[in-house]
Structure formats: structure tokens, C-alpha cells
């Protein structure tokens, strides 16, 4: 009994010192004591973020072999590599919390871990590559800039590094759209069509309205999340509407209008039925993305085994020499 009381007290004190740190705005580092729920929340969020970077390579990779110029191909190849690099970087950051990359991938395959819903939409034309860079990376940046000040040190540092590259992606995507809008009628139609299909899913990337969001409570208290879904969504809309106007693209929202008194844009209702349907596994590409990742992972097993066998063999040889 005495022992348990003691343990309880220690636990309480650790929790207090953790909360004091958060209060002061200090970063939490891997060796620091942290509540289980904090760790769990971060593992969930960071692995989801890492998986999103990796799964996002699929819809963009879909256009590499069809990129319409050598320059476009280089930009796209480099961008997708950046995303894969973000994935690697985030997997390592998440590993500081005591989970391995293999475990995270297992959780992805079992459906326990998620990835960004946006990649369950198909990339159908070259303009989609522009729209993904401009809108999807554009939305991701808004979220990630906010996460630069997240309380977990490795995550916040990862975000600082990643944000620099993401803003490149956003500009390059915008450049594709701008070029197409200056081009032939076919190109303009292609660009507008991509805009029409990607706009609403991009807004959904920020998640449900604040009033509906189930994860907000602790994440805000622990300063993992620094801005609400609606705040971030608003930021994205306000910067993007002007960019669209400049190149002559129409935002597919008839209710969109400048609100003088709020100093920002009002937007029409988001189709949350669609959001929950896609999250629930019924988007056009949910099955395709997961099946592909699983197939590639399984087919690559013999390569990973060989690399490991070779490593052990060489280690042994070194020991005996």
C-alpha cells in the first residue's frame, strides 16, 4: 500500500513538472517524462503525417512518366523525393517516442493508423499535379507552419525543416496552373476542372469544424495543436482566393465572398457527408492506395531479408578477422 502511494505521488509530480514545462512553452524532448496519453497522441499524429507523405507519392507518381516536358519531369521527380524524404524524417522523429517504422507500417496496413484523406482522390490530368502542389501542399503548409511551434521538440524541428520545401512545392504547383491558364483553351479547361475537383477536398484537409472536432481538447492543452481547424482553414482560404483570381481561376463556391466586418472570406457549406464517407473508406482510391502499399511492401520482403542477412554475414566476418 505504502509503495503504491509512493508511486502515485511520483507519478503526480512528474505530471506536474511536465505540465509546468508545457505552461512555460519549453519543448518536450524524447528523454523527458511525459504522460502516456501525450505520447500516444503524438505517435498517432506523427505516424499519420509520415504515412501521408508516403501515400501522397502515389497520386503524384501517377504522372511522372507522362510529365509534358523535361523540366516538368525534373520538378515533379524532385518534389516527390522531397515528400518521401519528409516521410523518412517524420518516421525517425516518431521513433523517438518508442515505436519502430516497421510497427508504424504494420499499423497503416491494419488500418489502425491513417493517412491524409486527400490522397484518396484520383489524379486524373496533368493539371491535377498543379492543383495538388498548389492546393494540397498549400493547405499542408498552413497546418505545418502552425506545427513549427508544437510542444514536442523532434516534431517541431521536423516541421521547420519540412516547411521550407513545402513552400517550394506550393509555388511550383501554382506555376503549373498559371502556365496552363495562359495556354490554350484545352489547358485552361483542364486547370479549371482540376480546381473544381480539388478545392473542396483541400478545405476538408483541416478536419471537421471546431465544434465537431473530437481530438482538440488535450492536444490544445498540451500545445501539440496551436491553432484550431477553422482558424487554419480560414488562413488557407484567404491566401488562396487571391492567388486564384490572379491567374483567372474560379473558386467553385458560389457563396464565397469577402466579409468586410470579419476581414476574411466567408465560404459555402462543406460537404461533410463526403468527408466522412471518404474517411470511412469509401473514397475512390482508399482501397487502391492501401492495396498498392501492401503489395509493394510484401513483394519487397525478400530484398529487406537479403540486406539483413548480408549485414549479419559481414558483421560475423568482421568479428572473426
Amino acid at each position: 500500500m505504502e509503495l503504491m502511494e509512493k508511486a502515485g505521488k511520483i507519478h503526480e509530480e512528474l505530471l506536474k513538472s511536465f505540465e509546468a514545462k508545457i505552461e512555460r512553452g519549453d519543448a518536450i524532448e524524447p528523454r523527458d517524462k511525459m504522460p502516456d496519453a501525450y505520447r500516444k497522441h503524438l505517435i498517432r499524429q506523427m505516424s499519420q503525417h509520415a504515412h501521408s507523405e508516403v501515400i501522397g507519392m502515389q497520386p503524384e507518381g501517377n504522372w511522372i512518366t507522362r510529365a509534358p516536358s523535361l523540366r516538368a519531369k525534373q520538378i515533379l521527380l524532385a518534389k516527390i523525393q522531397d515528400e518521401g524524404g519528409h516521410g523518412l524524417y517524420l518516421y525517425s522523429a516518431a521513433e523517438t517516442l518508442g515505436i519502430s517504422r516497421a510497427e508504424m507500417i504494420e499499423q497503416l496496413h491494419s488500418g489502425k493508423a491513417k493517412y491524409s484523406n486527400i490522397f484518396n482522390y484520383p489524379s486524373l490530368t496533368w493539371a491535377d499535379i498543379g492543383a495538388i502542389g498548389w492546393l494540397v501542399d498549400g493547405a499542408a503548409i498552413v497546418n505545418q507552419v502552425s506545427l513549427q511551434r508544437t510542444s514536442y521538440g523532434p516534431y517541431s524541428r521536423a516541421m521547420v525543416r519540412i516547411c521550407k520545401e513545402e513552400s517550394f512545392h506550393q509555388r511550383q504547383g501554382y506555376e503549373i496552373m498559371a502556365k496552363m491558364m495562359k495556354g490554350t483553351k484545352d489547358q485552361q479547361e483542364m486547370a479549371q476542372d482540376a480546381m473544381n475537383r480539388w478545392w473542396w477536398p483541400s478545405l476538408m484537409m483541416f478536419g471537421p469544424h471546431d465544434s465537431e472536432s473530437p481530438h482538440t481538447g488535450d492536444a490544445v492543452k498540451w500545445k501539440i495543436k496551436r491553432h484550431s481547424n477553422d482558424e487554419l482553414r480560414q488562413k488557407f482560404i484567404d491566401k488562396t482566393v487571391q492567388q486564384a483570381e490572379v491567374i483567372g481561376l474560379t473558386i467553385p463556391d458560389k457563396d464565397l465572398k469577402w466579409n468586410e466586418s470579419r476581414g476574411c472570406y466567408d465560404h459555402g457549406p462543406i460537404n461533410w457527408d463526403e468527408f466522412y464517407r471518404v474517411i470511412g473508406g469509401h473514397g475512390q482510391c482508399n482501397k487502391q492506395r492501401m492495396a498498392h502499399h501492401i503489395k509493394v511492401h510484401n513483394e519487397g520482403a525478400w530484398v529487406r531479408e537479403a540486406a539483413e542477412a548480408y549485414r549479419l554475414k559481414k558483421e560475423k566476418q568482421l568479428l572473426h578477422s
Partner: protein
Amino acid sequence: MTQQQALYKYCLRLGDDALIQSYRLSEWCSNAPILEEDLALTNFALDMTGRAQALLGYAGQIDGQGKTDDDLAYKRGERQFYNHLIMELPNGNFATTIARLLFTSTFEFYFYSDLMNSADATLAAIAAKTVKEVKYHMAHATDWTCRLGDGTQESHRHMQSGIDHHWMYTGELFETDEVDAILQDRNIAVDMASIQQRWHQSITQVLKEATLKIPAGEHMQSGSQQGIHTEYLGHILTEMQYLQRAYPEAIW
């Protein structure tokens, strides 16, 4: 054949090698056995696309008809491509791709090392940049050849079959014709016989270390110098050139 015509064709050959091999490697995006390899193979594809751009751009200049790098990449047909057949073969599994990369990157390493001394300043400059890149491709392919060759029984089997599969396409890498003769006279092109010797030596050594066998005296495939390809190239061009062909007026 004039020197200008020879140089034009020489640049197309090298540019097409880079372009078509980059196409194949870029197909590994989201398909590699480990994320690190996904990034490595597509990064090589990126190097090669840059090389293709430089070489095809230079070819366009030499030709003097106002053709750009993109015109040459996206608007020539099957019979006007001059890449070696080995570049266009399908990727197969990871070991198949590594086997090809071992053969081609070793070839390119010696080739571009010599081309750095070309009397043509543009080619020499492109070669200097390329050597740095292919040195890394070769090291990577060599590492993996050893890992897979000397890894597990299964990986050994895959690696050996990748080597065997590509062997009959390696002879073509060293073929020469009038183009080479004209340019070699002017110290622009490199001596293929010497490259072949070093290539063979290096490959023999790597395969030995990887516990793999060198395939024995087989007939070597040929044809690319006359623009005669495998059935695979047409499909690559169909996909690669789709947007440029479907929207000829468009600028992307």
C-alpha cells in the same frame, strides 16, 4: 556523313540513353522495397533527366533547325531513337533493375570519365558533371549486387537471373560505327575498345565478390544504332509523349 551530322547523332545516342533509362527508373516511384530505395532510384532518374536535357539541348543546337530539348524528347518516333536496347527493357523485380544499373552505370562511369577529355568543350563539361553522378549510381548498384548476390538463396537466385537476363544486351554498349570513327578522328568521341576492357574487368570483379557467375559466350543483341528497338520502346514513347502529341499547340 559530315562531322556535324556525326556529332548530332552522337549526342542523340547519349541523350536518349539518359532519357530512356530515366524513364524506367522513375517507374520505381512508390514501388521500391524500402522507402530509401524509392528515393535513391528516382533520384538517379532525376540525374539522368537532367543529363538528357543537356545532351538533347546540345543536339538541337548542333542540328541548327531550332529544335529544343523537348522537341527532341517528345516529338521523335520509335525509329528515330538511338538509346541502347538495355535502357528500354522493363524493370522486372528489384534485382533485375539493379543488374541493369550495374551494367549501365559501370559503362557510363568509364565512358564519361574518358569523355571529359573530349575536344568538344560542351561534351567535356557535360561529362564532368555526369561522372560525379554516375560514380554514385555505380557504387549503389555495386553495393546492392553484393547484398543480393551474397544475401539469401532467394536473393542470389533473383540477382543471378537479372545478370543473365541483361547479359545479351551488354555487347551493344561498345558497338561503334561511322559516327564514332569520324568523331574519334577529331578527338571528340572516346575509344570504346578501351572502355570495354575496363568495364569487363570491373564487372568480373564485382560479380565475383557478389558470388555470382559471369554468363558465358552468348549472342549479343544489336540494332539501336540503326534505330531498331525492342517492342518495349514504342510503349515508353506512347506514354512519355502523350501530352505533347495530344496538345501540339500547348506549352507546359
